[in-house]
């Protein structure tokens, strides 16, 4: 059509106008394409990160709870409510055609002490004594003695700083005990009665030991077996999954490395990673700081070495440093003073010679760890649980956010949660009144159990199933009702045996499902839209009158889920601004060109073109501009997106890793991206054409007649 032809020719003829308008439209289209690709890719990769690690597609929480569920939100216990009738809910949900799986959950954080080296050494000493191994006993005993001496020194130091008056009685007697254990007489008599010496060291000295790391661990209490099967990002790194039905804890590899690993070793790892990224020791402030810490904290290593190990490490370091120095502390200090040239060699040497002789991880696979919870009603709970191994969420290894989630079995979770119904509370109170609280105060185990809160460490068994009752048999559990009582951490041998029996106890599915939980994760079947899933779940909640509230993963994940909304808003806003500016500029330049074309348009009118035909000419011209420049912009944008879609964009930090669902981010243009970009460009162009077109329509044929000399 001639109008298209005129439009095209006009574009080519009015070069400046075309350059301005074209540049703006190209930029706008480019921005939309790139922006949409980023957003939709972040959205889908982040959704994978969130959905397939912990949150699943839909989360349920108690209706009317004070706080909304915020899985990736802030730490600490928030009041998200309780769910009691999980078996019933699960049955109903699993009947829905949209639902693939239902996983009970509860998210909480507790304190764990990351391995007491003295404790470990004492256990080694006890084993050596028991085995009658004279030499080994001697070596370990000397090490323990040195540790006790060090401990005594540290504590005396501490005493100098603190006000005696304010010290607790426990502390005071502890100090006396340590001083006593540091006397030569104590060690001279060791061989005569090793077991009572060991007992004294284990019960009185170990608890005074320094060097215990306090870890704040965040965990999902869940049906561990089902969790493992449903969340496909889950994969084991070390150890084994928690056997179905058993109690147990799995460390997230990220947390494990970050918090449980030996500090010096961890810092060396970090230096290695940073150097691998291209940093230089001389210029990187953080690396310098790590090196400084490694040098000043030499005790982290020396404290852990017994005589035999000390000699071996000395020899290796002397060889490496070509030094005659015999003081291990000085050797370690010098060894840790690494630079770009020697780092790789020393790193390797550290892992070959030193690492095997120290406790590389405070808690190791197979260890029983003590979790110190803080129940909702404010009293302390303590549970021993076996650490089966470490896992990671595939692709999210480096993400702090996903990496913070450890996994705990539901039974232990409930023990820590210490939740109970009002009925149960009353019952316990009555029991206590009858038996007399004081009598129970035999040792620290009971102290923890029936401490400040008044013995509220009881699981909700109001709806106990037959299976639960069956589990509570004397053979399975020496203590009264198996799943209902909590073992204490630093307790005596009785408590330890009790904990052991809990460790191997296998709970039935009914027991696992039967107790209280905090939230429910629902995984939808592949291809089911989350919106449809929400509709189905909400209908089910209504029909069954469940006291539940459903949240999609976005809402349930807390701030992170909203993050995508923020990016959307930022993008939308910048596009809006670009469009506003484009609108004004395009409009201006079209008005100018319309004025320039007054005679031409007047001539067309005189020759017989109707007003509407002039309007059409402008509309066509606008469309041609939009299509030509929009297409160029889209092509540029698509090119960029395709480039990074192919080669990936390195996720710069932990948060980016989480957003991209992996170490690299691969943006992709959603199928609706092109039409949306083109449509937006067309609308802007059309709007900016309105006023000039109106002006053009008002040009009369007389404009053709007036002679410009």
């Amino acid at each position, binding site marked *: 059509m*001639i109008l298209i*032809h*005129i439009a095209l*020719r*006009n574009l*080519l*003829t009015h070069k400046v106008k075309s350059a301005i308008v074209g540049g703006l439209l190209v930029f706008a289209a480019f921005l939309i394409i790139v922006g949409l690709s980023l957003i939709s890719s972040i959205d889908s990769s982040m959704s994978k990160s969130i959905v397939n690690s912990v949150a699943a597609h839909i989360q349920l929480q108690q209706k009317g709870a004070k706080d909304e569920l915020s899985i990736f939100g802030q730490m600490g216990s928030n009041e998200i409510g309780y769910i009691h009738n999980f078996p019933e809910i699960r049955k109903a949900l699993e009947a829905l055609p949209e639902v693939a799986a239902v996983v009970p959950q509860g998210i909480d954080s507790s304190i764990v002490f990351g391995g007491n080296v003295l404790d470990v050494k004492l256990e080694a000493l006890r084993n050596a004594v028991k085995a009658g191994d004279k030499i080994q006993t001697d070596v370990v005993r000397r090490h323990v003695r040195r540790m006790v001496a060090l401990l005594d020194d540290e504590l005396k130091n501490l005493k100098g700083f603190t006000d005696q008056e304010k010290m607790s009685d426990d502390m005071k007697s502890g100090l006396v005990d340590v001083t006593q254990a540091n006397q030569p007489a104590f060690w001279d008599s060791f061989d005569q009665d090793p077991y009572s010496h060991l007992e004294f060291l284990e019960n009185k000295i170990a608890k005074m030991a320094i060097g215990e790391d306090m870890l704040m661990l965040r965990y999902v209490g869940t049906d561990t077996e089902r969790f493992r099967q449903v969340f496909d990002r889950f994969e084991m790194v070390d150890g084994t999954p928690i056997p179905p039905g058993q109690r147990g804890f799995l460390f997230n590899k990220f947390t494990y490395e970050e918090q449980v690993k030996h500090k010096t070793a961890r810092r060396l790892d970090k230096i290695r990673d940073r150097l691998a990224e291209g940093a230089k020791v001389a210029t990187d402030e953080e690396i310098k700081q790590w090196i400084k810490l490694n040098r000043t904290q030499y005790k982290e290593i020396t404290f852990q070495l017994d005589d035999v190990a000390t000699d071996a490490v000395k020899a290796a370091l002397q060889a490496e440093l070509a030094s005659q120095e015999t003081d291990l502390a000085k050797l370690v200090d010098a060894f840790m003073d690494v630079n770009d040239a020697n780092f790789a060699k020393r790193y390797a040497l550290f892992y070959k010679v030193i690492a095997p002789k120290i406790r590389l991880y405070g808690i190791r696979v197979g260890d029983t760890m003590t979790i110190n919870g803080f129940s909702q009603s404010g009293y302390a709970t303590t549970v021993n649980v076996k650490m089966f191994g470490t896992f990671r969420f595939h692709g999210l290894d480096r993400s702090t956010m996903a990496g913070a989630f450890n996994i705990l079995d539901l039974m232990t979770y409930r023990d820590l949660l210490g939740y109970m119904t009002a009925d149960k509370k009353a019952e316990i109170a009555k029991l206590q009144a009858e038996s007399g609280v004081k009598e129970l105060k035999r040792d620290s185990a009971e102290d923890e159990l029936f401490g400040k809160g008044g013995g509220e460490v009881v699981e909700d068994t109001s709806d106990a199933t037959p299976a639960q009752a069956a589990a509570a048999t004397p053979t399975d559990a020496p203590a009264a009702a198996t799943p209902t009582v909590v073992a204490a951490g630093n307790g005596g041998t009785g408590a330890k045996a009790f904990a052991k029996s809990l460790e191997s106890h296998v709970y039935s599915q009914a027991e696992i499902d039967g107790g209280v939980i905090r939230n429910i994760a629902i995984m939808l079947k592949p291809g089911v839209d989350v919106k449809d899933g929400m509709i189905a779940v909400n209908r089910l909640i209504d029909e069954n009158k469940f006291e539940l509230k459903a949240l999609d993963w976005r809402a349930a994940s807390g701030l992170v889920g909203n993050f995508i909304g923020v990016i959307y808003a930022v993008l939308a806003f910048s596009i809006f601004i670009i469009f506003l500016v484009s609108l004004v500029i395009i409009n201006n330049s079209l008005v100018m060109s319309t004025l320039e074309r007054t*005679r*031409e348009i007047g*001539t*067309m*009118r*005189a*020759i*017989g*073109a*109707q*007003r509407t*035909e002039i309007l059409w000419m402008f509309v066509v011209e606008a469309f041609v501009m939009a299509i030509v420049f929009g297409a160029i912009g889209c092509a540029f944008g698509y090119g960029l997106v395709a480039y990074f879609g192919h080669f990936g964009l390195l996720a710069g930090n932990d948060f980016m890793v989480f957003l991209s669902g992996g170490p690299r981010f691969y943006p992709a243009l959603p199928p609706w991206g092109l039409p949306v970009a083109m449509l937006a460009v067309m609308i802007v162009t059309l709007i900016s054409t309105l006023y000039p077109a109106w002006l053009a329509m008002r040009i*009369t*044929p*007389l404009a*053709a*007649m007036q*002679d*410009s000399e």
Partner: protein
Amino acid sequence: MATTPSSQPIVHLSNVDKDYKLGAVTVTALRQVSLEIAPGEFTVIAGPSGSGKTTLLNLIGCVDVATRGQVIVAGQDTGKLAEGDLTRLRLNALGFIFQSFNLVGVLDAFQNVEFPLLLQKKMNAAQRKERVMDLLNRVGIAEYAHHRPGELSGGQRQRVAIARALVTLPRIVLADEPTANLDSVTGNQILDLMQELNREGTTFLFSTHDPKVVSRAGRVVRLVDGRIVAEETAEQYQTRQA
């Protein structure tokens, strides 16, 4: 076509006045103008600058309307037509030649000539091509069909404009000082062409202030201060000039 003499004039003006309002002042550009143009005529409107030639042609060309009196073009009373109908009348019954050619700069000669046919939407591409090429041949610039106006001389451009005016086979072609922007040699060639086309049957009404051009006309309408002061033949005009 206009070759057959018809009792019905193409243009009929009776007692036409045209006022221009410039704020409070009213300029009367035409007074009591009555005029008839019959098919086949080759009429010139002669008069000095400011005498109202353009105004008169604009009324006949349906691009403006009379303040008083009646203007009938191709049987239609232009005072009673709506804007769209006037436009249609211009498209179908009239042809325009402008002093400054007024070609569409971004279109080549062929496309400029074809433009009115496209607006008419009556012909297919082949018919259009035949008609356009026929006209380009008749005005003698077929070889420049695919040149744009910028690449053509003034005379060539006016030839394209003439072809464009004739392409719809209008009842009358209106030309306001068609030679004013051309040198005298080229102007004469254009007048030769117009005369030749007139002999082939096209009715022309054009204006000029140039006495040499007036002498080429078959009929001269003399305009002074918006009034027709004399109607004469070219011969009468010439003898009077002499």
